[in-house]
Every structure is written in structure tokens, then in C-alpha cells.
């Protein structure tokens, strides 16, 4: 379930396409949304991707790292990456300005098989920057609203200042038959919403597994306990979809870093059902 890259066979997969930062939007104090446009129109046309796929983005001279493409593919639309400043490459990217050139390799990896889930209730649970891949699922359902049942989003973060995509909350809430629940680990004076850990909220909300599929993405510990909560509500392993976070370098299953068991997260993932992920995590 991987897609062909622009340029096709024979092209050196380590050579990035050049892309220009069109604009940026600070989502939090340390997460910035980058909108980048591939410079070569032929590459841009061929760069078709699905929700959940990722690209490897370069800050030239600093290095490159993998990031979920959190926009939905549309002809002529820029690629969007929500990048948290946490390491060397992300700091290098945050130092760039609109108009600067970055490198993009991809699209890589598998994706959320949204077509398979038509007619189902969609539960989306994202923790912190784990909301980035979840954002494309939310927006997919919002765009194809008639194809799905209820849309129930649970977005959590350490603090109110760590919530991402707050500018899209109204759009998500106003979609028919949709719910958005927010929670933080630690509130502040202005915070009126929940102060609770995501797994506890998931249990409290009593998500029904009947004809539903749940997407979970966030830090490993959050995934672990959220999945337990969902299982407590009766969700089966195949009903829970997650993405595995892994160190990656090459993006094409060669460099060995993301190898877990016989799977290469960059090639065979990053999207796994929890049933698949459980098997893999036993190999760690």
C-alpha cells in the first residue's frame, strides 16, 4: 500500500524535490504550520498523497526528518506540515522564513484507508502534536461528511497552550453530527474545559464500538493507555487505528532505524491497526 513517487524509477530517492515555504502559522509557542509549494510544476502535479502519509523535509545544511503531511491533497494546494521545535532539524526548519527553500522527499508510507470506513462512526483521539496526522482524518471526514456516521474528536494536550489547530475547531464543531471534546493535563485561569488525561476522558465519553473505528495518535504512553480504555469499552484490535512513531532516516526501508520485527515503519507503516501494532511492539 505504498504510492509511487514523482520521477519514477531510476530517480535517486535521496535527492529531495525543492519546495518554497509559502507561509507559516504558529499553532502554539513551539508548533508551527509550514505551507510549502513544490517548485517544479511537474513534480507538484505528480505529488499525490493520502491522509497519514509522510514526507522527509530538509533544512539544507542542518538535516532532514520525517513529518506527516497534515493537509488533504488537492490539485495545486501547498503541502502542510505541523512541526514542533524539539530537535536539531525542527529548530533548523523553524529558523527559516517564507520564501526560503526546503527539500521534500516522498510521499512515503501507507495511509489511513478512509474508503474502507465509509458508513462508520469515526472516533479521533489525538494527543499533543499527535493531532497532526489526526487533523487530515478529521478534515477528510468533514469534506466527505455524507460518507460517514458520527464524527467524535477528542483532542488533548499538556496545557491549553499546547493545543494545536485551535483555529479549525469551529469548522470541526460546525460539521453535522460532530463533536469536539478538549482536555488538558493542567489547566490555567482561563481554561473552562476538561482537566483530565485522555484515556480517562475516552472512558467517560463511553464511545460505542458498534459500527465504529477509532484513530489514536500521540505519545507512546498516551497511545498505550488510550487503547486500553477503548478495549475496556469493547473495541477490538482491528477497530483501533494508530500510527507508530519511529526514528527514520531514509524513508524507503533501507537505513534500518525504523525496523521493528520484519516491518519497516517507513515502508509498511506508519499506519497500523492496533492488532498489527501490538504484534510489532512485542518485538521491542
Amino acid at each position: 500500500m505504498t504510492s509511487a513517487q514523482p520521477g519514477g524509477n531510476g530517480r535517486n530517492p535521496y535527492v529531495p524535490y525543492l519546495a518554497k515555504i509559502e507561509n507559516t502559522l504558529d499553532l502554539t509557542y513551539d508548533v508551527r504550520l509550514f505551507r510549502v509549494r513544490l517548485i517544479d510544476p511537474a513534480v507538484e502535479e505528480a505529488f499525490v498523497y493520502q491522509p497519514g502519509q509522510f514526507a522527509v523535509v530538509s533544512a539544507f545544511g542542518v538535516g532532514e526528518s520525517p513529518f506527516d503531511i497534515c493537509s488533504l491533497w488537492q490539485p495545486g494546494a501547498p503541502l502542510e506540515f505541523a512541526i514542533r521545535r524539539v530537535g536539531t532539524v525542527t529548530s533548523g526548519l523553524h529558523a527559516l522564513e517564507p520564501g526560503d527553500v526546503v527539500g521534500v522527499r516522498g510521499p512515503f508510507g501507507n495511509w489511513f484507508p478512509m474508503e474502507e470506513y465509509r458508513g462508520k462512526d469515526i472516533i479521533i483521539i489525538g494527543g499533543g502534536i499527535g493531532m497532526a496526522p489526526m487533523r487530515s482524518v478529521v478534515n477528510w471526514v468533514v469534506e466527505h461528511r455524507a460518507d460517514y456516521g458520527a464524527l467524535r474528536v477528542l483532542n488533548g494536550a499538556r496545557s491549553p497552550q499546547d493545543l494545536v489547530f485551535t483555529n479549525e475547531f469551529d469548522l470541526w464543531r460546525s460539521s453535522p453530527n460532530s463533536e469536539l471534546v478538549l482536555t488538558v493535563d493542567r489547566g490555567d485561569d482561563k481554561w473552562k474545559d476538561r482537566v483530565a488525561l485522555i484515556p480517562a476522558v475516552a472512558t467517560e465519553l463511553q464511545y460505542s464500538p458498534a459500527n465504529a473505528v477509532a484513530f489514536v495518535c500521540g505519545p507512546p504512553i498516551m497511545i498505550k493507555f488510550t487503547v486500553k480504555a477503548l478495549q475496556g469499552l469493547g473495541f477490538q484490535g482491528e477497530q483501533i487505528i494508530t500510527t507508530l512513531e519511529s526514528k527514520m532516516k531514509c524513508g524507503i526501508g533501507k537505513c534500518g532505524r525504523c525496523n521493528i520485527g520484519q516491518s519497516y515503519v517507513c515502508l509498511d507503516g506508519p499506519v497500523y491497526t492496533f492488532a498489527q501494532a501490538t504484534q510489532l511492539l512485542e518485538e521491542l
Partner: protein
Amino acid sequence: MDIITRESLKRWLTTLMDRYQVMAPVLAEGNHLFRAISSTDEIAWDYYNSVVPPKELIFPLTESLFTLEYQNGVPQIQEPVIDRQTVIFGLRPCDARAIAMLDASFMNDPVDVPYARRRALVTLVGWACVRPESPCFCVNIGGAPNGTQGLDVLMTEGTDGYFVEPVTEKGKAVLEGAELKHTDAVPPEPAALPAFSTEGLTERLPEVFLSPMWQQQVEACISCKICTFLCPTCYCFDVRDRRDGEAVERMRCWDSCQGAHFSKIAGGYNPRATKTARWKQFFYHKYLYYPERFGGVIACVGCARCVRKCPVNIDIREVIQDLKEDISA
């Protein structure tokens, strides 16, 4: 079979140097290593095996993936030119077999283009091991001291010269012009190596993943990574940028799953934070994950570099034995 005298062999290699870069084992600063030669006098004819496997000639320790420079503010990417026809002369059958294993990963779709470019230009002329010694264990892991897998030509030293066995069309082509003579003699049989069985190992590994023996085995390990650095089938790498003013060079270099930071992600989460977890990754990748992915072939050729060079005497043959005892217990 054909045979070539030592003198004719030297003449043939000298002629090849017009068309090819010839790499051969030489003695460099006290170590046997593969290096480009300009005279056959440089060849270490009596070498046993190179300290660093000849995979470094196809998958270099460090290589440039591209350079980027700005021209009038516009970045221009330049890929390195890889166009040198090369003969690797004198490599051992285990190391040729290891290259075939690297091929399976690097040439698998999506193709690793820098590797594929180099690989296409290389002809492998191997030397059989006539006197293999313990701790070598190729015979116990699917290979042979006179195996031909991965080679284009196999040569075996005899009393009157070298027996020459072309293996591939590429091998036949490179031998054109060599003064070969037909002989009714047969190449000498390699000396026997101590026997132990690796049969059923891959099948049994899933059952022992949680065994305490893994921790016991690596207690002495100092994470020096030499086992992976010298392993002819290891192919993990790192990718990094080097900057000189405005010019950028993206490099890749060998890396090791035995390093504490290998799988650590930005933000600090490390899925393999213990030595035991990393040691299991090394062993399971070679003996289970690689075979599962690439047609059942164990990614170990029994060259025993890891056994010879481990500073704390961890012996992979003993690990295999432990495992079998642990399984039967």
C-alpha cells in the same frame, strides 16, 4: 577446468588496470584492507581476510548523496558521478555472499540508486579459502569456503597456479585476454571447520524473545559497535548534512543498531533504551527479520569478524548454542 599461473594472473590484472579500477587486499598500516592498486606487487597474496569487509567498496563507510549550492540565490543540486568500472579482486566467498544479501535490500523496490549505480559497475573476482580456520563458520550457516554465490569469478589457489571458474557472464567478460590453460586437475578441497548446527534457528527464535539469556549474554558488552561496523551484512546508515559556507553536502555513513541513540526520537523517547533490547535487534534482524523479509536467507555469512574483534569476547557461535540449549530446556 581452467588454470592460470601466478605470473599470468599478474599480467592479466595489470592489463585490467587500463579499463578498470582494480581493488585488492593490501597491507595498510598493519591491517589487511581492500584498496585500489596500481601494481600487483601491492597485493597481500597471503592474506586471510580483510579486517573491514569489501562491502565498503560498494556501500562506502561515508559517501556523498548530493551537494547543494546557490547560484543567484537559486539552489542547485548536484549528484556525484559514479561511473568507474571496478574489479574487486581477491575477496572471500563469505564476503561475496554478504554482498548478495545487501543486494536483496538495496536493490529491492524502491531501489537505492547510489548503491545500484556502484553495484552495476563492479565485477567480483573471489578467492576460495583453502585453509579456513575457526572461528570462521561459513559452512554452518549456508556458505562454503569455495562458494560462488555473489561472485562473478572464483579462483582457487593450487600448486601450479589458480584454478579459474567463471560464474556469470560478467565474469566471462572480465576474463577475456587472460592466459588460461585447461587442466584435468581439480581444485584442492578446503580444510574442514568445526561443526555445529544452526538448523531450525530462525523458526525457534520467536519463542525465546523474552528469555533472560539475552541479558546475560550482553552483560559484558561495552556498546563499542565493532560487531556491526565490521559485519559484511550490516547495512544500517545515518544521513547527515555538512555545511561549508553556503554549500551543503548531504552524506550518509554506516551506523549501528548497537548505539544507544540509534532509535531514539526527537523529544527523548527511545524504543530500545537497553543494551539487551539493542542486542536482540542485532541478532533477530540477522537470524529472523531479514530471513522473513528476504526469502528465508539468514543474514550472517560466518566470517566471524564479530567473534575475532569483540573486545569482551562475545562469540555469536556460543550465542547460537545457548539459544538451542535454552530452547530445549
